[in-house]
């Protein structure tokens, strides 16, 4: 029976803080995430190279070197705990045995560190959603579906502590929706398609996790919200459109938790701020220390409420000091050390630091503004007051647009003339969204290209 979130787990903005979650997640080794401390979560990836049977020895060597280097640096800096996210590359999910082999390699190194240095660690494994290799995507059957779930199983057996995914149900129409500025198509992709697929997918992932005693952690809307953020940074779409999409991803990502995910939610899911407010689960986030992976306008404000602090991902290339993953590890350790020191000094100090993180970004970009704890709590409250994923996504759109307008009036943000033109255009589109889900689906059907999306994969 799916859980239904109808009230916020965090109600007071002063209780919405980094390192502390109402429902912390404890690992078998005793590491507790969300129990008072923020831990680094390091993610690393291969340099430019192919993955095939001939290169697999080099792939193994690369991962062995990266995990060796980052664990060494963690010990040198006396880290008392950290998480490693192993986000598979598509070839490693397409060949699940390869994906599991690397998981085992990482597990063994982390176990060695625990034994030799008494540092508690966590291994998050994130297989890819390879179902989109079929076009239109086949989401519920076929070789890619089988291989993806087999990859989850093998990685769980190989030593993952947490399993996560960036699932892509609905993305086949959402990419076009982003670049066309098509709000209805975006709502359809997230509130109808994505949410239905998440229900199917997370029932299965949670079942695998139960079978192997692994923690189902969460599902990032990266392919939706972060695609929009990156396009906004390139000035391809308005920032206000990217911010709106971010808020609209919340109901879709919440479905994972309704089906049994418990956190920590994935780093690139900036909607995690809302997920933490609603579910009380711990979350990972990324910002300033993720500049190695992408530009973002939320470098500091993302530090306001995370329980794991991540670098997104970094390629294994040599820098002046050391390898890039090692440098990233050092940066994450120092960033989290500051947050934890503030918390050690008491809640007042922690809140003071949190507010500096918030104030240094929130007025600069509407995408940062929506991560303000007070804004996230207000919008989250309005979203979960609605009963279904569609109505929640519709409410997310209406409430966020209203929030942007009020923030502009109060001069809490400064929207340019062009962005204001878009605020009006998006509001006109949002006002057309019917309150009947059936009516909305009927409206959207004729606009969909059957070569791109197969509605039967969504029970439609």
């Amino acid at each position, binding site marked *: 029976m799916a859980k239904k979130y109808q009230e916020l787990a965090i109600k007071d903005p002063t209780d919405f803080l980094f390192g502390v979650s109402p429902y912390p997640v404890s690992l078998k080794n005793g590491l507790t995430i969300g129990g008072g401390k923020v831990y680094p979560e390091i993610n690393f990836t*291969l*340099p430019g190279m192919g993955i095939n049977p001939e290169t697999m020895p080099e792939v193994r060597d690369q991962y062995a070197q990266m995990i060796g280097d980052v664990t060494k640096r963690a010990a040198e800096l006396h880290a008392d705990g950290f998480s490693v996210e192993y986000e598979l590359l598509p070839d490693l999910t397409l060949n699940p045995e390869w994906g599991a082999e690397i998981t085992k390699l990482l597990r063994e190194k982390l176990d060695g560190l625990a034994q030799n240095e008494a540092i508690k660690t966590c291994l998050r494994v994130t297989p890819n959603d390879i179902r989109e*290799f079929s076009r239109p995507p086949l989401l519920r059957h076929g070789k890619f579906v089988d291989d993806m779930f087999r990859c989850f199983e093998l990685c769980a057996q190989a030593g993952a502590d947490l399993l996560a995914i960036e699932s892509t149900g609905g993305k086949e129409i959402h*990419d076009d929706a982003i670049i066309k*500025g098509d709000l209805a198509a975006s709502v359809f992709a997230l509130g109808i398609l994505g949410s239905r697929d998440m229900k199917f997918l997370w029932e299965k992932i949670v079942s695998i996790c139960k079978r192997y005693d692994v923690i189902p952690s969460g599902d990032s809307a990266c392919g939706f919200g972060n695609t929009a953020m990156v396009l906004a940074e390139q000035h391809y779409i308005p920032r206000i459109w990217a911010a709106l999409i971010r808020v609209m991803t919340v109901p879709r990502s919440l479905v994972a938790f309704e089906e049994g995910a418990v956190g920590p939610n994935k780093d690139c899911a900036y909607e995690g701020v809302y997920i933490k407010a609603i579910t009380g689960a711990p979350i990972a986030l990324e910002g300033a220390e993720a500049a190695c992976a992408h530009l973002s306008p939320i470098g500091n404000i993302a530090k306001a409420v995370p329980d794991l602090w991540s670098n997104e991902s970094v390629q294994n290339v040599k820098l002046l000091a050391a390898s890039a993953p090692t440098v990233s590890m050092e940066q994450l350790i120092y960033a989290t050390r500051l947050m934890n020191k503030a918390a050690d000094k008491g809640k007042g100090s922690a809140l003071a630091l949190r507010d500096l993180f918030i104030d240094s970004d929130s007025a600069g970009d509407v995408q940062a503004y929506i991560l303000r704890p007070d804004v996230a709590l207000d919008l989250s409250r309005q979203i979960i007051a609605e009963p279904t994923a569609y109505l929640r996504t519709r409410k997310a759109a209406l409430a966020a647009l209203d929030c942007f307008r009020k923030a502009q009036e109060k001069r809490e943000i400064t929207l340019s003339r062009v962005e204001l033109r878009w605020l009006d255009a998006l509001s006109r589109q949002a006002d057309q969204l019917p309150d009947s889900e059936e009516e909305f689906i009927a409206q959207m059907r004729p606009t969909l290209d059957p070569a791109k999306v197969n509605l039967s994969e969504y029970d439609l």
Partner: protein
Amino acid sequence: MNKNLAAIYQSVVEGESSQTAKKVQEALDEGINAEVILNEGMVSAMSEVGRLFEQGEYFVPEMLISARAMQEGLSVLKPALAKAEVRSTGKVVIGTVNGDLHDIGKNLVGMMLEGAAFEVIDLGTDVPPERFVEAIKTNGAQIVAISALLTTTMNNMKGVIQAICAAGLRKNVKIIVGGAPLSADFAQSIGADGYSADASKAVALAKSLIA
């Protein structure tokens, strides 16, 4: 500028598809040369749209609406262009390499090339080298545009270029590449003719290579 040409220009800039088609027909009825309608009415309008984009006044959604208006106008104009034997700026085969499903960047490049009156043959994503080769042969393309967004797939671009060479087509086409993990040095190292850091610069690159 002629009144109808000015109306075509304005309708493309403002993305008024039905108005573009109507005004193109009126211009043809008035006896204006098809190539003049194409270049002075529509291509120049898309150049203005590009300028508005560069200035931050337009975003991609507005460019797409303008591009759609141009396509509506072209559908009316095509028979007259064929009759006058007016050729497109060039033919471009575009696709994302095998193993890679990212297509937003590729789609943006394709859209901007069409706005500059290139004929674009879009092969989609996860495209094996032999499909690029086949498309060059079938369409007589002058340019091949290859996209990749992953560090593990960018090297597959070299395979595409090798396949084009092996098919004896390398002298016939210019090859341009793009995608987040790429660089100009990488493009040169795999034997491409050019690299574009973003979609808006790809048009100028394509034009310069076939000038």
